[in-house]
């Protein structure tokens, strides 16, 4: 079970958090101008990487804040956590 360093609260048990899927997918500003395929790309398509993955997490049973995490899915090592809107500190 992960020990997650919430950017607002510090280290907490994984059970306080909720995973929220892939990070850095921006909601299109003008959805009406997109074709079905373009909209489907935003709506449905997600990466499922073995290795370094960028994810959204929510400290749901804590400060309720969303933040981002860089995690190596092959060994569950958390490389970094950072606030929404910030650039990932690692590649």
């Amino acid at each position, binding site marked *: 079970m*992960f020990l997650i360093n919430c950017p607002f609260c510090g280290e907490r048990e994984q059970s306080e958090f*909720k995973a929220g899927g892939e990070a850095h997918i921006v909601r299109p500003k003008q959805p*009406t101008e997109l074709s*079905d395929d373009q909209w489907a790309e935003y*709506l449905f398509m997600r990466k499922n990487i073995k290795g370094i993955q960028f994810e959204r997490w*929510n400290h*749901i049973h804590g400060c*309720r804040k*969303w933040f981002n995490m860089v995690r190596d899915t092959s060994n569950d090592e958390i490389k970094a956590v950072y606030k929404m809107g910030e650039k990932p500190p690692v590649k």
Partner: protein
Amino acid sequence: MTKNLRVKSSKLVDETYRISFKFNGTTYYGFKGDTLASALLANNIHLVGRSFKYHRPRGIMTAGSEEPNAIVQLHNGTSRTEPNVRATEIEIYEGLVASSQNCWPSVKFDIGGINNFLSPLLPAGFYYKTFMWPASFWEKYEYFIRKSAGLGKSPDVPDPDIYEHKYIHCDVLVIGAGISGIIAAKTAAKNGFKTLLVEEKSYLGGSTIYQDSEFFKINNQNSASWLEKEINEIKKIENLEIKTRTSVAAFHGYNFLLARENLTDHLPLEQRENKTRQRLLKIRAKKVITATGSIERPLIFDNNDRPGILLSSAIKKYADLFGVACGEKNILFTNNDSAYETAISLIQKGIKVQAIIDNREEIDSKLIKETEKNNIKIYKGYTIVDTFGYKRINSVSIMKLSKDGQKVIGSKENISCDSLGISGGWTPAVHLFTQSGGKLKFRDDDQVFIPNTYPSNQISIGSCNGDFTLDEILINAPKLLKEFLNIKKTEYENIEIYSAFNKSKRNIWLLPSYKIVGKTKSFVDFQNDATAKDIKLALREGFRSIEHVKRYTTTGMGTDQGKLGNMHALGIISETASSKMGELGTTTFRPPYTPLTFGAIVGRNVGKYFDITRKTPIHEWHVENKAEFENVGQWKRAWYYPQNGENMHEAVQRESKAARDSAGILDASTLGKIDIQGTDASEFLNRVYTNAWSKLEIGKCRYGLMLNEDGMVYDDGVTTRLDENHYIMTTTTGGAATVLGKLEDYLQTEWPELDVYLTSVTDHYATISVCGPNSKKIIQKVIPEIDLSDKDFPHMSFKNSKIGKIKCRVMRISFTGEQSYEINIQANYAKSVWENCMEAGKEFNITPYGTETMHLLRAEKGFIIAGQDTDATMTPIDLQMDWIVSKKKFDFIGKRSLYRSDTIREDRKQLVGLITDNPEEILEEGAQIVADMNKTPIEMLGHVTSSYFSPNLKKSIALGVVKGGKNMMGQKLIIPMEKKQINVTVTDPVFLDKENKRLNA
């Protein structure tokens, strides 16, 4: 026949403290400190069970948690009964009652034993092959399999014991208190680390604590005496906590571990009352040192499973630690020096060793010389080819091994015995290490898997790291500890070690026989009765992956997870398939390492604490007025209020009629309530609801529908504009938490520029809904100061008001289609306001109604319930709610998805009303809807989502979703039921008062 096989001077048992216990109905005696296994062996009892498939007699084989055979049921027929307990682990106490598990009718005469003679018919995969076809026979087979399998009986009354959970945070966790663990714990604690040492047994020191001979010395003392002093020292260290009888069950990522601490299992039953039985420790350690030791390997030869055959190290342990001889004529069979340690212990205690059979041809060590000095015959380069004796071994056949070890040569020789100790070398106990995600490497020299890469801040030391001998441990462990703990030196730098152990070993995974493999029963997995022959058969049938062979032969799938035989299975596969050991990998060891009780897993979360129960502030009133309740999520909601022995149907008919004829009252406090404030609150609502919100006046309410980004209806509710920048949103009861979560998600991640704040106020306000033609008069009596005239307070509007001094919010909104008012008031005043309403409504026959009537009333009006009439595949268009989707708004969540090629299909399932031809016939919710019964396969058009008998319309009504239903008005459809077909007509979903006259009546 009962004999006393107790010998003098044991380390652990207290011979002045006699304990009586029962095994299979007979009373025996043992001493305090005995395990059930050691006490049985002292009474010369080896036969304790039957094997799983062939029901062969089986005896105690080990002295630890790896035991495959001696599995017993404790206190059968009582509330404290427990199956699958290993006799080698349970400590005896006065009054212990144990019985053999896998036998019927008794361990000595077992009907399943006939399987042994049928064994040519029971090869690997037998169950798969035989019982798979025809599938309909499975139920019959299963009955017999379950009856003869004997996996123990679960208790059929509640567990009387108390369990608890405890969180522990430490700097260093040391698992295992053998010599390596003791050294590690002492070093860590003395260097300032807050340390926890856990040990599954009741005593500290592992096998070194009884390694009491001149052949193993540390600083010129016998290793046992040296270690005893170390133990006495660590007990005094302040920042070191020691927990015995504590077994680590799981090692998860990030050094999170679960351990079970046994607190009362060794006490007589009457001393357990009101004590915590087991504690589940949830340990988060900065560093973990695994010192779990190693498990002796058996040897694989024909009939290697008879009662009286034990691991050689177990024979030594029973003699040294418990003062018990496993037999009076012992033979030891080995491929390494360990058996000689056993021999010397037995000699010291005056227990007879008949002979030692050693696979190795050329051997030389001080241990062997000492053994020979005692005139014990050693057969060098020999192997056992067969054993005899049905319920107890009585002799063995041996033959000479060829130079390459592939076959036997010469003639057979028989030696009699009553006990056989076997040693195939040692396997590091890497189970916990691999659970944590650690990767192993194979060491060719002595054919063992050892830790290679660590996924977290941890190390393995001692024999679980492949350091088996005293000198290896004492040289390597301190080195590893220094680096791991980042310290300059340890106390163990200049230590003097003497070990007479020679490390040579002759590893033969499957020992040869004069018979062909197909004619032998060489057991690899003793608990699941998997033999070398089965593994070879699996390979012949094309299985290659170790995981497949495991499942096909069931090797390693017992409660012991193959702790003894997995390595041999791998070895036999690699030899047969000519693949390299280490390239095959190993099977996955999954938690728990040893079985956990359900009690320990749930802890205190039992009975009413199993799950959270949420009650409204008016709950007590509902209880006093005999409401039946239904669970809605965690909420208890009043379902209906039966009077004078009414059933649910009768109560609901009465309640619904009263609500439309005069007045009804509903506790709607469970609805989710979200307080929304901020200068962008209107814009925010515009984006999350399908309809437009910017023009909603202060003091007005509006119904809203919320979609997922995929266009599917997600939740609904009424939101009220309280002020310029202040709204109160209601959600469905079940959707409250997820709606708040979703809104927060969009606010924080997509639209952080919006000035909006969300607060859940579900528990802060109670909601009392009064509806019906007389509702206005009742509210007026309860709140005299409020102007309720239709002109001043029309439908879908809101007013702040007061009841006495207490502020409240009154909304005129309706989920029933009747004129209806909702009073929202601070939760702790709610019950008295409810009672006010009841009092005021008395003259109007005000009738409390529950969720069932609420559902009926809204169904008459065709109002949906999100989650009942919708699932995650219904758009607002599918619901015929086009009117609520704004065409003008530039964007809202889910808008773009409403005209994807899939969502604009005409033949999607759409919400319609269904009227049965027979007005008395009530449809079943969930029933299928079809058009043509003659077409095959019959096309399923949809299903019924809501169905009631309407007392106001005096007929059955239903809602359902039907493919292309929107264009099927007036069409006849069929609901096929098990014994009949029900004919229905498709209608508009609004059954009552389409013109909404009643809202202002």
